[in-house]
């Protein structure tokens, strides 16, 4: 199984309807945030007012990963704004029948963050986090719908969103990130992988080791030590499907967790049960 990425154009409702018709498994609309205050800078994801728990967990995971990568905070409610602010942005994602997120990882109005948005390294980091989030939450592959915020709207063809501090536009750089993410998804087959602990310096991987899905990691700043609690579980086989964190069922009528998420969760639960049986 592999991922196919398709970019959708037209007005936002048309994009969502087209993705529904194509039976996409996930929908991503990429924006950057903006504020009158140049120092504002946090990562947030808008999910629809009818968002499934998969969308919410996906959004929270992504926002946290971006905040960790860029040394910022998460905004909203643990990284997500359900239904946007007073409904603004809700219409961009609420009409999909698959999990959907509207990403606002960085602020175009923040000069330091704008520099990161313009840089190859910043775009690559954002693309890597997005691709990783898709692999994590949709491990079975499938069609992923990408939508560049503001750009290619039939009703407003010249819209490019917010201006980047120091030059450039929100939409053009969101498109660059999505193109990089699409390349990453297309380049690597959707082989389910286990949870990996990585140590990186910039974009360079220094160390990598598998850890249990449920292992608790704790950092001791006094000892400069990352401690992995020993759960006693057997190591997860490399080919085992990844569990999706807390994928549940939404109260809203929208599509809930992708079947793959449920399958991954069931597999993780089965591994835990087996391990408990072995301990007994």
């Amino acid at each position, binding site marked *: 199984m592999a991922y196919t990425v398709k970019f959708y154009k037209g007005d936002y409702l048309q994009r969502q309807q087209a993705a529904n018709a194509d039976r996409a498994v996930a929908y991503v609309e990429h924006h950057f945030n903006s504020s009158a205050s140049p120092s504002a800078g946090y990562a947030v994801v808008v999910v629809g007012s009818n968002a499934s728990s998969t969308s919410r967990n996906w959004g929270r995971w992504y926002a946290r990963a971006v905040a960790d990568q860029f040394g910022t905070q998460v905004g909203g409610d643990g990284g997500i704004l359900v239904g*946007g602010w007073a409904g603004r942005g809700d219409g961009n994602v609420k009409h999909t029948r698959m999990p959907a997120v509207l990403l606002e990882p960085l602020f175009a109005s923040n000069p330091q963050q704008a520099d990161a948005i313009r840089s190859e390294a910043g775009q690559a980091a954002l693309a890597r986090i997005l691709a990783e989030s898709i692999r994590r939450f949709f491990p079975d592959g499938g069609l992923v719908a990408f939508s560049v915020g503001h750009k290619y709207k039939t009703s407003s063809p010249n819209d490019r969103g917010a201006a980047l501090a120091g030059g450039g536009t929100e939409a053009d750089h969101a498109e660059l990130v999505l193109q990089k993410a699409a390349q990453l998804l297309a380049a690597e087959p959707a082989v389910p992988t286990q949870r990996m602990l990585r140590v990186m310096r910039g974009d360079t991987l220094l160390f990598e080791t598998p850890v249990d899905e449920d292992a608790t990691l704790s950092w001791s700043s006094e000892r400069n030590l990352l401690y992995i609690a020993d759960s006693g579980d057997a190591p997860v086989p490399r080919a085992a499907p990844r569990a999706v964190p807390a994928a549940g069922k939404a109260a809203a009528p929208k599509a809930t967790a992708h079947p793959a998420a449920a399958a991954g969760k069931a597999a993780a639960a089965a591994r835990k049960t087996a391990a408990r049986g072995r301990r007994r």
Partner: protein
Amino acid sequence: MAGTRPPAQRLRGSAIAAAAAALIAAAPAEAQPQATVLRVYFNNERLAAAPDDCAIVFERMRAVPKSEAVAAAALRQLFAGPTEAERAAGYRSPFSTASAGLLKRVFIEHGTAYVDLHDPRALLPGATSSCGAAEFGTQVERTLRQFPTVRRVILAIDGDPRAFYGWMGQDCDLTNDGCKPAPFGRRRARARGSGRRAHRVTA
């Protein structure tokens, strides 16, 4: 009634009165008896308890000629943005002198303020982000809600609410009366028929 207010509120009230008096005193002598003091609201992350909350706003006072329709006057003051001194003090807004002419007209019917804007899409491209929308929306709503007759606000671009809410990525639903353009058109037609300027309806 002022004596029954809690001390913090009394202090706030007296601070507003003092600010208003200072503003009126600073106005040209011939304008003083004619002045009305209005409030506009801007963000200020130095004052906000949660600096990342783009929907926290703080009031600033503005003196305007007394004869002017107050809702329109307040919005015109808001759309002109913070003064240089206010910006130096940390007040922030998507609005500035470049957007001073943004208001086309405003009128109030049955508790709803209908705000018709000249097309802001090229002027305020960041206003549709989640933070930008919170700043834009909160500043406009709080400025209009200082008038007791305003309970909610519906916006339009050149008389078309669908254009405004579509720009904001917001569906047309009960909160914006399904983006019906009729109130904006009705008001325009009535204003034409009576020879009265629609934006002169006061709060």
